C-alpha cells in the first residue's frame, strides 16, 4: 500500500474558510477528534466492529514511544521528499505557514494569520511571534521568503512543489509580514502553504541535520532502521508535545510488526491489515478512521461490452458493497459511490442510493438483457497482486458478478505491469485498485475529465467536461464545492466506474497511550500522544 501511496501520492485536505485561521490550534486532544466521530472512534470509545480496551485517564508528560513505519525515509528534505511514508514522519519535524488539522481544516502555524486580496492574487501572511527553529533561532521573514521561493522554483527555476509554480514573487513587507503574489487565481493554493518553513539557506548545506519548527526535533536517522526525534522544548503550541522522544522504526513485514506490537517493542503501528486488526484488538487498542483512498472496480469505458452504459450500470447494481465491506473492510470501511473522500464533508455527496449498497440482481439482469447480454459475458479483472486487499475484493466481486451471469476471472499482475498495461496503456477491461487523494479536494475528480492523461478508465462525458471547465474557472471554494458535487453525480449516473469502499485506516496503540489523532491527510501526528497516568 505504501508504495502505491507514494506513487499517486499524498496529502489530502478538507476545507473551510479561505482567509483567517480557525480558532483552535489543537492544544487539547479532545477538541480534535471530530473527524473520526463518524466511525465512532474517539479517544473515549472504540469503533463498533473493533474491540479493544481504550485507555482513559489523565495525560502525563514525558516518555518514549516507538512507532513502527512501513517504509524507509526517501529524503530528509521536506520539499523534495515524495513518499507518503516519509511525509507522515516529517510532519512532526516541520511546519508550514499553515498546517493541517485533524478535522480537515487548516490552522495557522508559522503564520499567525493571513489574508487574501480581493482579486485573489496576493496572499499576506503575518508571522507568529516567537516561533523558534530547532537550532534556537527565531523564524524571520527571510526564512519564510527563502522557503517559499525554494518551493515555487524562484531560486533556481525548478519548482519543488508544482502547485506553487504560479507564485511570481515573495516580498518582505516588514520583519513580521510576507506577501506572496501569484499570476492566476487558485483557491486551493492555500493548501500548498503547508510546505515546510526552513532556515534561510539551510537546504544548500550538504548533509546538514534537518531543522524545522515542528513539535519534535530531529536527532538521528539510520537507513533501514529508522529515525529518532526529541521533544522541541520551545514549541509554539503551549503544552505540546507530551512525549520526550519518539523513535520511528522501519518494519516492512506485517508479521514482524504484529509480533513487535505484542511484545511491546513498538507501541504504535498504522495501516493494519484486517487480519492484524482482528488479532491485535484482543490485547491492545485498535482505532479506526476512514483513510484517504477510494477503492473501486474500475471499468474501462472504451472496451466492449463496457462501453455500453447499461452494462456498466448492471455491474454497479450487481455489486454488494456491504458484503465487500464485511469481507475486506472488516466492516469498518465507508461505502462510497463516487470519487470523493467521505471525510471531506463540504464536498462529499452521499450517492449510495443510486445503485444501492447491496446487490440488486434483478435490476442488473434487466439492464444486461436490454443491452443485449441476457446470458452475461466474460470479463477479465486485472488486479495488482501485491495488494491483498484488492485481490480479496476482486475475489468477492467475481462471486457477485457470477450471480448476474457475468463470468469474471482474475488476472493477478505485478504492480509494474499494472502501471504500464492498465494505468498507462489502458489495455484492460476491469481492475480493482484504489486512488489516493491529493492536496486538493478536486484531485480525485480531475482525472475523469475526458482529456486527462490520468483518465485511465477512458471516461467520456461531455456534461462532465463542461462542469469541470466551470470548476477551473470558479474563484471561490464554495462555488467549486457545488461543481464538485455535480461532477460526482454525473460520474455515478454515467456509471463510469464501480466505486466500492473508503477503507478504514486502523491503528494499533499500546493500552497506556492516548491522544492519537486521525488526519484526513497522510500524516502521523505524535505531538498529541501521551502516556496515561496510572
Amino acid at each position, binding site marked *: 500500500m505504501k508504495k502505491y501511496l507514494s506513487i499517486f501520492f499524498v496529502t489530502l485536505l478538507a476545507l473551510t474558510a479561505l482567509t483567517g485561521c480557525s480558532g483552535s490550534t489543537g492544544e487539547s486532544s479532545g477538541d480534535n477528534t471530530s473527524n473520526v466521530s463518524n466511525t465512532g472512534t474517539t479517544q473515549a470509545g472504540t469503533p463498533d466492529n473493533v474491540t479493544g480496551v481504550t485507555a482513559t485517564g489523565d495525560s502525563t508528560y514525558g516518555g518514549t514511544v516507538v512507532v513502527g513505519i512501513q517504509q524507509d525515509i526517501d529524503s530528509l528534505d521536506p520539499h523534495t521528499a515524495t513518499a507518503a511514508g516519509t511525509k507522515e514522519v516529517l510532519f512532526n519535524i516541520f511546519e508550514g505557514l499553515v498546517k493541517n488539522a485533524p478535522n480537515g481544516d487548516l490552522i495557522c502555524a508559522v503564520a499567525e494569520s493571513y489574508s487574501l486580496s480581493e482579486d485573489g492574487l496576493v496572499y499576506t501572511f503575518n508571522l507568529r511571534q516567537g516561533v523558534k527553529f530547532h537550532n534556537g533561532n527565531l523564524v524571520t521573514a527571510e526564512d519564510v521568503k527563502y522557503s517559499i521561493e525554494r518551493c515555487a522554483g524562484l531560486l533556481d527555476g525548478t519548482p519543488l512543489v508544482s502547485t506553487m509554480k504560479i507564485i511570481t514573487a515573495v516580498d518582505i513587507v516588514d520583519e513580521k509580514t510576507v506577501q506572496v503574489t501569484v499570476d492566476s487565481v487558485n483557491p486551493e493554493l492555500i493548501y500548498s502553504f503547508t510546505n515546510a518553513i526552513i532556515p534561510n539557506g539551510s537546504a544548500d548545506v550538504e548533509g546538514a541535520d534537518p531543522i524545522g519548527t515542528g513539535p519534535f526535533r530531529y536527532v538521528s536517522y539510520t537507513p533501514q532502521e529508522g529515525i529518532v526525534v526529541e521533544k522541541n522544548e520551545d514549541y509554539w503550541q503551549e503544552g505540546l508535545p507530551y512525549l520526550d522522544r519518539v523513535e520511528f522504526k522501519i518494519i516492512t513485514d*506485517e*508479521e514482524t510488526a504484529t509480533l513487535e506490537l505484542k511484545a511491546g517493542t513498538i507501541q504504535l503501528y498504522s495501516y493494519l*491489515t*484486517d*487480519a*492484524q486488526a*482482528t*488479532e491485535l484488538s*484482543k490485547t491492545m487498542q485498535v482505532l479506526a478512521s476512514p483513510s484517504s483512498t477510494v477503492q473501486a472496480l474500475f471499468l474501462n469505458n472504451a472496451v466492449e461490452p463496457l462501453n455500453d452504459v447499461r452494462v456498466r450500470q448492471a455491474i454497479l447494481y450487481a455489486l454488494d458493497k456491504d*458484503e465487500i465491506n*464485511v*469481507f475486506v473492510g472488516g466492516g469498518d470501511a465507508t461505502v462510497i459511490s463516487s470519487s470523493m473522500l467521505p471525510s471531506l464533508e463540504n464536498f462529499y455527496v452521499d450517492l449510495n442510493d443510486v445503485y444501492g449498497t447491496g446487490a440488486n440482481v434483478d435490476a442488473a439482469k434487466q439492464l444486461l438483457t436490454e443491452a443485449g447480454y441476457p446470458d452475461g459475458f466474460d470479463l477479465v479483472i486485472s488486479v495488482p*497482486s501485491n495488494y491483498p486487499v484488492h*485481490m*480479496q475484493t*476482486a*475475489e*468477492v466481486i*467475481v*462471486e457477485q458478478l*457470477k450471480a448476474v451471469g457475468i463470468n469474471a476471472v*482474475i*488476472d*493477478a499482475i505485478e504492480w509494474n505491469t499494472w502501471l504500464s498495461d492498465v494505468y498507462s496503456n489502458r489495455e484492460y477491461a476491469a481492475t480493482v485498485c484504489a486512488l489516493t487523494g491529493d492536496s486538493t479536494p478536486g484531485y480525485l475528480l480531475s482525472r475523469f475529465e475526458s482529456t486527462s492523461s490520468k483518465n485511465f478508465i477512458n471516461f467520456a462525458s461531455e456534461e462532465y467536461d463542461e462542469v469541470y471547465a466551470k470548476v477551473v474557472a470558479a474563484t471561490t471554494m464554495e462555488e467549486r464545492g457545488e461543481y464538485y458535487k455535480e461532477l460526482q453525480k454525473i460520474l455515478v449516473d454515467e456509471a463510469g466506474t464501480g466505486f466500492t469502499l473508503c477503507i478504514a485506516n486502523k491503528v494499533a496503540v499500546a493500552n497506556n497511550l492516548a491522544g492519537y489523532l486521525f488526519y484526513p491527510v497522510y500524516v502521523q501526528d505524535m505531538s498529541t500522544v501521551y502516556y496515561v497516568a496510572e
Partner: protein
Amino acid sequence: MKVFNLSASKGKKVNIYLIIGAVMTSLVFLIAIIGIFWTPYSTTAMSARERFAAPSWSHLFGTDNFGRDIFSRVMKAVGTSALISVLVVAISAAVGIVLGAITGYFGGIVDSVVMRVIDAINGFPSILLALVIISIFGKGRQNVVLALGIAFTPSFVRIVRGEFIRLRDADYIVRARLMGVTKPRILFVHILPNIFSTFWVSVTIGLNNAILAESGLSYLGIGVQAPDATLGSMLSDAQGYMSSSPWYVLAPGLTIVWIVLGMAMLSEGIGKFKK
C-alpha cells in the same frame, strides 16, 4: 531399514511401508478425484455470516475469511496440486528417459554436451529456476507445469543415465547387440524395463517434491490464481489468521504433510519391494 513381519504365522513378510504409503496416497488421490466432480459445498460461494467458523460436523475443517468451506477447498486444492505434480513428473520423466537413455547408452560428445546443459540447469535451486521461467512466460497453471517440469528434468536424466551406463555392458545387452537388434529396441525394450524399480522410486519422490514446489510457488503468489486454490495458496492466504483461526492454516498444512508422508513411505516401500 527393517521389514516388519506382521503375519509371521503365514511365513510371509508384509511390506508395511508399501501398505501404509499406498493407503495414505490412494486416499488422497481418491479425495482429489471426488473433489473434481463433487464437494460438500461450493468452493467459491462466500458467506458473510459464516466467516471463521471453527471445525464442526457441518464444516469439517471450518471456514475461511470469506466464509468458504475449507474442507471443500482442500478437496479441490488437492486435486489441483496432484494434477499439476503428475503433469510435472510426466514431463520431466519423459524427457529424462529419452535424454538419459541416449546419453547413458551412447556416451561421447552427445553425453558431454547434454550433461553440461543439465549441470547448468541443476546449478539453480529448482524453485529459483521455476521463478525465472515464470517471470519469462508469465503466471498460470500451464506455466507452473512447464517451469517445474524443466526444473525437475535434471534429476531424472541423471538417474536414467546412471542406470543405462550400468546396464549397457551387461551380458544380455552385449549379446543383443551382437545379434543385430536395433538400437531403439535395445534402449527401450531391453534396458528400460529393467530400470523401472529404481525409476519408480524417483517418480514418487519427484511427485512429492513437485507438490512441495507447487505449494511453494503458490505460497509466493505466482502459481495458480485466485479464486482457484492450491494447498500452497491456501497456506499463504491463511497465514495472517494463524493465531485467531488456526484451523485455516492447519487444514492445508496438515494435508501437505499427509501427502508428503504417504508418498515418502510409498517410495520407501517400492524400494523394499525391489529387493
